């Protein structure tokens, strides 16, 4: 059996192979730095060696003397442009070449442009700066950081959610815990390097750069360059991994565009792995204090979650995962508070399930501790605290299949064979531990446009400015068209990743499948309506079937009475060769400006905790087995089982792969990933893939994904909940719980390393 292609259950689509599979295994899929470009010049960044202060003098003479150097873009050279803005489209307000202030280590101080990559690299290393430097504040507990309440600072966290009287409930709880947890700085490290290739033809600028938001970037880049957005095009047909890192545009894009205009040639700048740690975004380190109070029979009466997050000096980047943790269980009362800590660091940004990964980790590790304190099975503890309605606003869940997920995952995992006594399970030299945790991710969608063309010979072309970042969205958009139009996948083509296409929202927040498929569905239905009207018209091939229910299958229009007409005959009757429809989807509850904002590159999200009628989330339950060597304390994860319910599954193959990859991310968060910081210099130390640990093949064994059937038509017309960010929520807590079960050591600070288990 091919495990990559799960047999579809109710409300689940076929596991068709990826529409771009052949391109990807033959090297023909063109990532932005692959685009053939005649007469291209090469760019290389020079970056600061201090984290706080000012550049007093920049020395570029040695660099300019390198044969082949064409230009150096530095202070003053960006003065004719507007500074970057911090927000959903822009990564940071730090304008590195507009201002000699240094806000973080590794800040851009120049871009060298040369005839060859080698000359550009050589010259960039010869750029020297004199600094007026000041002692930097690296992170939590550093002298000089500024701490402030986060609520209202970011659209991600409008308020600190609360319910009931936490203080009274906690004070009177029979059983309680009060613990602190932390997660480290992490970098996305997609294997594709960040790059910008900019080329001007007259006043027309084309930028090839891996992006999760081509429309947003077009608007933002045009603003910075003070040109008409109609003259700017962002092209990103394939993205080599993103995970949030390619959502916001960084300062480099405009700098490379300016360089290309100055040298009068295309310029390509591929950022080194090391420089990307500072010039792109990252997942900020977080700290948490969790208090849970419960009655002796395990009913939670009080839940308190305080969070602290690091950000840069100027930008209040906040994720605030308390919105999700505060709604997770049937708490009697809730108190939350989130603070941001401004330090001398580059601005963090979205990284796969930005709020939920750190916050749900803390909650779920605490839930396991609480189950231990209650002497209760951790699955049972969650089951009896399953809510009817979410506790903050009292709204119903549009659907919530968490208990089903626990039931199915527990059975597949063999949870009943677990001996709850800590350290009781052993195999040879290995201590065996088993743990579990809940996964949750808000279900949202945003306005999206799509164009669908059907030709008389049954060829379909779908166009949508969304982004194939590995999720399979190109495939599922094609599947949606194939299903609605009754055409085989071999006759479907899908174009994405270009701001010249109908606009789509940022590919973030797990909204793409829902938003794109809803738009494609609408466009297909418009095509169908035209075909159906012509088919049943007086002179049409199905004349007289006007009252019949019509469907499209196998390149035919089929009437409920049994009559059918070939697609080509309907086109013949219409005397046309193609039907092309452009559709705009806007989620229920969209504001009147929602579509206008779509064209302006600003996604208006709906769903999650934002809707009036219900809250919308996807859920999952994850079970992990760990083995800890009784002598060396080496930690291995031989087995993970996750069961997930996420509404309509468009394609069981791509859905399973994303959830599997997500759970492996969770293992990485539990055991591997951490960007280490030299606290004296506020400098990242392990800025490469040798020392920044991510899971490798040998770290991973069995990973089972169960797709639990669920129908939820409240979420969007496609009935789809996003799942790209669901899989890695909770996993780290399940690992931590399993490590506790194996060893009796409760590790609260990620990642869990061998040294945490020694002594």
């Amino acid at each position: 059996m091919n495990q990559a292609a799960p047999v579809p259950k109710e409300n689940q689509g076929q596991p068709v192979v990826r529409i771009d599979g052949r391109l990807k295994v033959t090297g023909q899929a063109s990532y932005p730095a692959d685009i053939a470009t005649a007469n291209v010049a090469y760019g290389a960044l020079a970056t600061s060696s201090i984290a706080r202060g000012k550049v007093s003098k920049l020395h570029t003479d040695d660099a300019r003397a390198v044969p082949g150097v064409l230009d150096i873009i530095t202070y003053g050279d960006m003065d004719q442009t507007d500074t970057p803005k911090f927000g959903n489209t822009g990564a940071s307000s730090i304008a590195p070449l507009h201002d000699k202030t240094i806000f973080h280590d590794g800040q851009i101080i120049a871009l060298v442009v040369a005839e060859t990559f080698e000359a550009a690299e050589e010259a960039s290393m010869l750029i020297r700066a004199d600094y007026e430097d000041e002692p930097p504040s690296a992170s939590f507990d550093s002298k000089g950081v500024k701490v402030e309440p986060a609520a209202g600072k970011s659209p991600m966290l409008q308020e600190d959610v609360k319910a009931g009287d936490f203080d009274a409930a906690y004070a009177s709880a029979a059983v309680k815990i009060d613990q602190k947890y932390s997660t480290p700085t992490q970098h996305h490290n997609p294997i594709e390097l960040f790059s910008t290739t900019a080329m001007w033809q007259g006043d027309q600028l084309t930028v090839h750069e891996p992006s999760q938001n081509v429309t947003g970037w077009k608007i933002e880049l045009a603003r910075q360059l003070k040109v008409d957005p109609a003259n700017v095009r962002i092209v990103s047909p394939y993205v080599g991994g993103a995970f949030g890192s390619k959502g916001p545009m960084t300062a480099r894009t405009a700098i490379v565009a300016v360089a290309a205009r100055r040298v009068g040639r295309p310029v390509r700048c591929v950022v080194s792995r090391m420089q990307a740690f500072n010039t792109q975004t990252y997942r900020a380190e977080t700290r948490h204090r969790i208090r849970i109070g419960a009655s002796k029979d395990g009913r939670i009466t009080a839940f308190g979650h305080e969070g602290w997050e690091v950000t840069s000096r100027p930008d209040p980047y906040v994720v605030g995962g308390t919105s999700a943790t505060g709604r997770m269980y049937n708490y009697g009362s809730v108190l939350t508070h989130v603070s941001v800590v401004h330090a001398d660091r580059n601005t963090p940004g979205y990284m796969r399930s930005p709020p939920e990964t750190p916050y749900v980790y803390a909650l779920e590790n605490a839930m396991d501790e609480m189950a231990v304190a209650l002497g209760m099975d951790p699955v049972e503890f969650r089951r009896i605290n399953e809510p009817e309605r979410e506790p903050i606003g009292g709204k119903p869940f549009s659907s919530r299949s968490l208990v089903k997920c626990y039931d199915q995952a527990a059975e597949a995992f063999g949870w009943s064979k677990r001996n709850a006594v800590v350290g009781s399970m052993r195999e040879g030299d290995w201590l065996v531990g088993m743990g579990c945790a809940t996964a949750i991710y808000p279900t949202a969608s945003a306005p999206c446009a799509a164009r669908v063309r059907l030709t008389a010979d049954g060829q379909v072309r779908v166009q949508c400015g969304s982004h194939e970042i590995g999720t399979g969205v190109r495939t599922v958009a094609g599947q949606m068209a194939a299903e609605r139009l009754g055409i085989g996948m071999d006759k479907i083509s899908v174009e994405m990743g270009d701001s010249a296409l109908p606009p789509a929202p940022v590919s973030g927040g797990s909204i793409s499948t829902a938003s794109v498929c809803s738009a494609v569905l609408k466009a297909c239905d418009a095509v169908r309506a035209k075909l159906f009207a012509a088919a049943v018209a007086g002179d049409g091939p199905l004349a007289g079937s006007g009252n019949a229910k019509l469907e499209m299958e196998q390149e035919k229009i089929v009437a409920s009475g049994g009559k059918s007409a070939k697609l080509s005959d309907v086109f013949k009757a219409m005397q046309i060769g193609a039907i092309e429809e452009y559709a705009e989807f806007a989620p229920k509850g969209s504001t009147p400006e929602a579509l206008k904002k779509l064209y302006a590159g600003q996604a208006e999200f709906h769903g999650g905790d934002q809707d009036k009628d219900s809250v919308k989330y996807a859920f999952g339950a994850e079970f992990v087995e760990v083995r800890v060597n009784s002598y060396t304390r080496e930690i291995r994860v031989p087995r993970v089982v996750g069961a997930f319910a996420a509404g309509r599954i468009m394609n069981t193959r791509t859905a399973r792969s994303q959830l599997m990859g997500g759970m492996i991310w969770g293992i990485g968060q539990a055991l591997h990933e951490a960007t280490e910081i030299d606290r004296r210099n506020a400098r990242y130390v392990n800025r490469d893939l040798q020392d920044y640990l991510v899971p490798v093949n040998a770290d991973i064994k069995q990973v089972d994904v169960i797709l639990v059937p669920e129908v939820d038509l409240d979420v969007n017309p496609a009935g789809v909940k996003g799942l790209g960010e669901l899989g890695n929520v909770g996993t780290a807590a399940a690992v931590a719980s399993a490590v506790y079960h194996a060893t009796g050591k409760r590790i609260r600070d990620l990642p869990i390393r061998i040294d945490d288990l020694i002594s």
Partner: protein
Amino acid sequence: MSNSTNPSGLSRRTFMTGSVTAAAAVPLMAASTRAAEPSPARAVEPRDLSTISLRINKQAYTLALDNRTSLLDALRDHVGLTGTKKGCDHGQCGACTVLVDGKRVLSCLSFAVMNQGREVTTVEGLTSADGELHPVQQAFVDHDAFQCGYCTPGQIMSAIGCIDEGHAGSEDDIREYMSGNLCRCAAYPNIVAAIIQARDEIRRA
């Protein structure tokens, strides 16, 4: 850099100090850069161009390249074969894996000039003339052994090496011998399943 993957026996250091006399430099490409004096007595400087002849996917190429150009950049920027990917340029991720004389090599850690006379195979050279995928390529499609696809050319070249070396005997062997190829989308279980399918098919053939 391990010398075992470097049949010429040259390390980056010995090369950079000019102890190697590479072939005379004739600018065949990149005409805008300087060519070295064609004097055999003169030590070769890093910035000089050298002429190198090699075969790539069964075709002969003669290139004039900056001595510092990696095999990876030569393939991508000078030959136009962009299927081979740059993920770190430090030999840490495996995305640039190609076969050199049939052995898997990290092309970012190999100077192009070290590959004089060698046969290089990239992901573009695997498909048969009639368009049939190599068994490893087909297995990667069948088992969804990728998501974003960026590490995939390197994974596929490395998988061919792994099978050919006899290191695909068990799932544990495959995991171990494929651990030089990072997949950030984490398709690892699918990669293992794909290699098993391809291994069995190659053995049958």
